[in-house]
C-alpha cells in the first residue's frame, strides 16, 4: 500500500469519490465483481456442477452460505461461476452492438445523402420490433448457446449507438478542426479515424456502460424463459429458472441470483449515469 502506483490509485479513487459518490460505488462494485469472475475457481467453495442428491434443497447454513438447489449443488459456487457467463455475455453483446452501431452511424453521418437515408430507415425498422420478440424468435431457430445469445443480443441493440454516433458526426463534420484537416488534404479514412471517431466516442461510452447492464438483464430473461444459457452451465438467469420450480419451499434459490443481477445492473447504471454527468460537466 506504500508504493507509488497504489497511492496514485488512491488519489484517483478519492477524486472520483468526491465528484460522484454513486458512480464511484458502481465502479467499485464492478471491480469486485470482475475479480470474482476471474478468480472463480479459487473462490468457489464447491464444484458448481457437483450433484449431491442427499443434500438437495438445504437452507442457507455455515456449510452452504446460500443453500443448495434441487440437485444438491452449492448455490454460492454456482453464482460465483455464473458471474463469468453473465459478465461475458454482457460485454461481448455490447461489443457487437458498439461495433455495428459505430460503423453504421459513422457511414450515415459522414456520407449523408442517400446512404444516410437508407441506413436510417434500417435503424427505424429494427427499432420497430419489440426486441424480445425478435430475440426469442431467432434464438429458438438458431438453438440457444452462449455464442448465439451474445450475437443476437448485440445485433438487436446497436440502433441506439448508431443514432448517437450519427448525430455526433453530423455536428463534428462542420467543426473547424475537421474542416482544417480536410483542407490540409486528409483522406476520408483519416478524417474518420483520427478526427471524427475519437471525438464522437463520449456518448457511446455512456450508452455502452448502460448497455452492458441491459444485456445482462436480457440474458437473464432469455435464460429464465429457457432460451438462454443451457444447463448445467450456471448463469444467473438459469439458476433463477431452476429455482422457480421450488419457489414455495426454497426461496433462497430465487432471491440470491436475482440480487446478483440487480446489484450488477445497478452498478452499471450508476457508473453510466456518472460518466454521463462527468462528460456533461466538461
Amino acid at each position, binding site marked *: 500500500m506504500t508504493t507509488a502506483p497504489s497511492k496514485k490509485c488512491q488519489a484517483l479513487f478519492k477524486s472520483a469519490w468526491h465528484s460522484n459518490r454513486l458512480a464511484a460505488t458502481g465502479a467499485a462494485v464492478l471491480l469486485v465483481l470482475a475479480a470474482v469472475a476471474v478468480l472463480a475457481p479459487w473462490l468457489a467453495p464447491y464444484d458448481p456442477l457437483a450433484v449431491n442428491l442427499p443434500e438437495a434443497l438445504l437452507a442457507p447454513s455455515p456449510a452452504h452460505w446460500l443453500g443448495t438447489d434441487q440437485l444438491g449443488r452449492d448455490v454460492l459456487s454456482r453464482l460465483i461461476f455464473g458471474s463469468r457467463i453473465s459478465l461475458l455475455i454482457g460485454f461481448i453483446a455490447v461489443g457487437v452492438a458498439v461495433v455495428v452501431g459505430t460503423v453504421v452511424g459513422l457511414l450515415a453521418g459522414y456520407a449523408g445523402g442517400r446512404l444516410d437515408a437508407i441506413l436510417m430507415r434500417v435503424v427505424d425498422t429494427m427499432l420497430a420490433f419489440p426486441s424480445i420478440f425478435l430475440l426469442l424468435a431467432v434464438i429458438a431457430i438458431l438453438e440457444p448457446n452462449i455464442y448465439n445469445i451474445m450475437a443476437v443480443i448485440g445485433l438487436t441493440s446497436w440502433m441506439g449507438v448508431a443514432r448517437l454516433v450519427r448525430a455526433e458526426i453530423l455536428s463534428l463534420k462542420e467543426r473547424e478542426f475537421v474542416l482544417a484537416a480536410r483542407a490540409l488534404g486528409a483522406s476520408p479514412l483519416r478524417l474518420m479515424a483520427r478526427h471524427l471517431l475519437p471525438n464522437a466516442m463520449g456518448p457511446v461510452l455512456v450508452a455502452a456502460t448502460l448497455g452492458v447492464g441491459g444485456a445482462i438483464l436480457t440474458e437473464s430473461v432469455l435464460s429464465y424463459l429457457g432460451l438462454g444459457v443451457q444447463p448445467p452451465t450456471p448463469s444467473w438467469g438459469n439458476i*433463477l429458472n431452476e429455482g422457480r420450480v421450488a419457489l414455495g419451499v426454497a426461496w433462497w434459490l430465487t432471491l440470491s441470483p436475482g440480487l446478483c443481477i440487480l446489484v450488477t445492473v445497478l452498478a452499471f447504471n450508476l457508473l453510466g449515469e456518472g460518466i454521463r454527468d462527468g462528460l456533461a460537466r466538461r
Partner: protein
Amino acid sequence: MTGYLLRRLAGLVPVLLGITLISFSVMKLAPGEPTDASLQFNPKASLEARERMEKLLGLDQPLHRQYLRWLGRVARMDFDRSFRDGRLVTEHVLERLPVTVTINVAALFLVFGIAVPLGVFAAVRPGGAFDRLTTVLVFIGYSAPGFWLALLAIAWFGVTLHWFPVSGLHSIDAETMGLLRRGLDVAWHLILPVGVMTFVGLAGLSRYARSGMMEVLRQDYIRTARAKGLPERRVLFRHGLGNALLPIITILGLSLPDLIAGSVVMETVFSIPGMGRLFYDAVMARDQNVVMALVTIGALLTLLGNLLADLAYAYADPRIRVGSAR
C-alpha cells in the same frame, strides 16, 4: 397538419416493407418446411404428395415470389393457420388480445397516475429527502429483472401470506359463479401481475416526469406566477404540470414495445393466457406462422405508437405545426 401527417405516413412505407422483409427472412431461416409438420409423421406420404403440397402452398416458387405472396396476405391480415392445431392465426390472436390489452391498460393508468405526482414532488425540491428516496426506487426499478420481482411477489404475497392467487385468471370454481363474481375473480387474479408491471413501469416515467418538471420550473413564467402570489399548488399543477405533461404523454406512445415485451415475461410467469403467453408457447413449439404473425403485429403496433406520439406532439406544439405548414 395534414401535410405533416401525409409526410409522416409516407416515411413509414419503407419501414413497413423492412419489417415484413425481416419477418419473412426469419421465417425462411427456420429449418424445415411447413410441409414437414403435416407430412413427416405420415409414412404413407409419398414424394409426389409432398411436391403437390409444396405446389399448393407456393413453396416451389422462387423466394421473391413467395415473399410477395406472403406480403399480399399480410396486407389483408391473413397469417394462415397455426401448425399446432390448424386454426387460423388471427383467431388465436383475437382470442388472446382482450386479456393482454386489459392488463396493459390497467398497468398504464396506474403507472401514469402514480409516476407523474412522484416526479412532480421530486422535482419541487431536487436533492431533498423525497427526491433521493424516489431516485433510489427508480434505479432499483430500472435494474431489477421484472420477472424476478414477479417471482418474489408470488413467493411472498401468494405462497407465504396467501393473500392473492398466483397464476391463471380464474378460480377453480369460476364456472359456478355469477357474472359479477366472475369479473371480481378475474380482477382478484390480476392484482399481482398488474401490481408488478406498474412498479416496473414507474421507474422510467417518473424519471421523465421529474426532469420535464424541473425544466419547466426553471422558466420565467413560473417565477411570474409565484411573484404574483398564486398559491403554490396552482403554480405547480396548472402552470407547471400543464406544460410538463405534454412530453410525458408522448412517452406513453413510445413505451408500447416495452409493454409488449413485458407481457411476454409477465404472462409467462403468472400463466396468464394472453398474447405474450401465446407468443412464448408458439416459439417453444416452433409454430412459425404464429411467431411471425406476432412479430409483425408487434412491430406494426410499435410504429403506430410512435406515430400517435408524434402526432400528439405536433398537434399540441404550435412550433411543429406551423413549421410543417411551410
